[in-house]
């Protein structure tokens, strides 16, 4: 650009002829004198590239991709195993919980039954005891009453004998007094 400031035509024309001078003025892609060089170097570099690519580059990059793939698959499989394990643990826990619950219920029932039976037995024993005491008390009452009644007869016979003696001045014989008392007590 600097050269064009000086004179628009001549330097550019000079550059053009210089460029043409190097290659006989043809269209560069069709200049057969350059073909051999291009083909030789293309062969060298393309073969070099092919060797680098096939022996080093692709195995390396492919290996990295495959390693990642394997890692991801391994991780997924591991996650699946862990999930299965936790599922199994959850199931076991639930089973354990259910059995514990039923066991607790059984224990509860058993102890309740036991307590009921014990209470029942105690109640029965107490009732029997009370019944025995009641019977004894009734017996005592009956005997006391019988005693009292026989005392009443004696008193009545004494009183009757005394009354008869007082009224008649005769001492009544005991047998007739007792018979009379008995008869009146019965009546």
């Amino acid at each position, binding site marked *: 650009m600097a050269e064009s400031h000086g004179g628009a035509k001549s330097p*550019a024309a000079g550059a053009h002829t210089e460029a043409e001078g190097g290659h006989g003025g043809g269209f560069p892609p069709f200049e057969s004198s350059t073909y051999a060089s*291009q083909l030789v170097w293309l062969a060298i*570099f393309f073969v070099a590239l092919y060797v680098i690519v096939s022996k080093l580059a692709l195995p390396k*990059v492919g290996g*990295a991709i495959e390693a990642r793939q394997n890692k991801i698959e391994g991780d997924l499989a591991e996650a699946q195993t862990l999930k299965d394990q936790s599922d199994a643990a959850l199931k076991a826990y639930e089973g354990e919980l259910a059995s514990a619950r039923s066991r607790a219920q059984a224990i509860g029932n058993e102890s309740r039954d036991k307590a009921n039976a014990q209470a029942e037995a105690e109640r029965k024993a107490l009732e029997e005891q009370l019944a025995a005491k009641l019977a004894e008390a009734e017996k005592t009452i009956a005997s006391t009453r019988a005693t009292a009644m026989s005392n009443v007869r004696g008193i009545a016979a004494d009183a009757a004998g005394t009354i008869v003696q007082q009224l008649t001045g005769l001492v009544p014989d005991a047998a007739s007094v007792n018979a009379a008392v008995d008869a009146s007590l019965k009546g």
Partner: protein
Amino acid sequence: MKIDPIHQFNIEPLFTIGHIGSQTIAFTNSSLYMLVAVAIISLLMLASGTQLVPGRLQSVAEISYEFVASTIRSTAGSEGMKFFPLIFSLFMFICVSNLVGIIPYTFTISSHLIVTAALALLVFFTVLIYGVAKNGLKFFSIFVPHGVPGYILPLVMFIEILSFFLRPVSHSVRLFANMLAGHIALKVFAGFVAMLGFSLGALGWFGGVLPLALTVALYALEILVAFLQAYVFAILTCIYLNDAIHPGH
């Protein structure tokens, strides 16, 4: 200022290494950029680490790997993976050299027909030799399409054979012409900017905006073309190899 859109394609010998017959074998700017392409690819693929969680460089390397691998699998089947190193080398070599060639003042290897023709012939003979070695004479059944009525079969076969032998021509000229035309167009439009600026003064500075915008747009297009032509070259290679692997289809 004179525009010389052809100058960029000149082959400049850097040093001469010998002669084959009357031909001079020189290390040229073209050879230098081949070396650059090989060096960039090797660096990308080999220096990029093998971490479980890839970094940027490793991602680029792995994306290139997966991209080429999936292209081969989808066009030539898993048997085509035999040719993975070849197709990967072709794709990366063309892609990287095209992209490097887009940078101003650099040289584009594939803008020379001799280079693209050599690569296309490499593919052509790989297909031919592998196809015959693997399938024997059955390979030539690719010239006889199924379900064609007998009376036009000779014509169809003639066309098939012709198109088979024209493959290296279209294969190489497509890449060459795209790169050549793109670079010439870029140079011409970019040259307009400078020409307007230097010849018309202040007015030219404004006038140069339009070709400059075009140059920018064209440059973006050329980046796409650089990649796309490498992809087209690789996918055509896969399709041709598919003929050699499965000649019945």
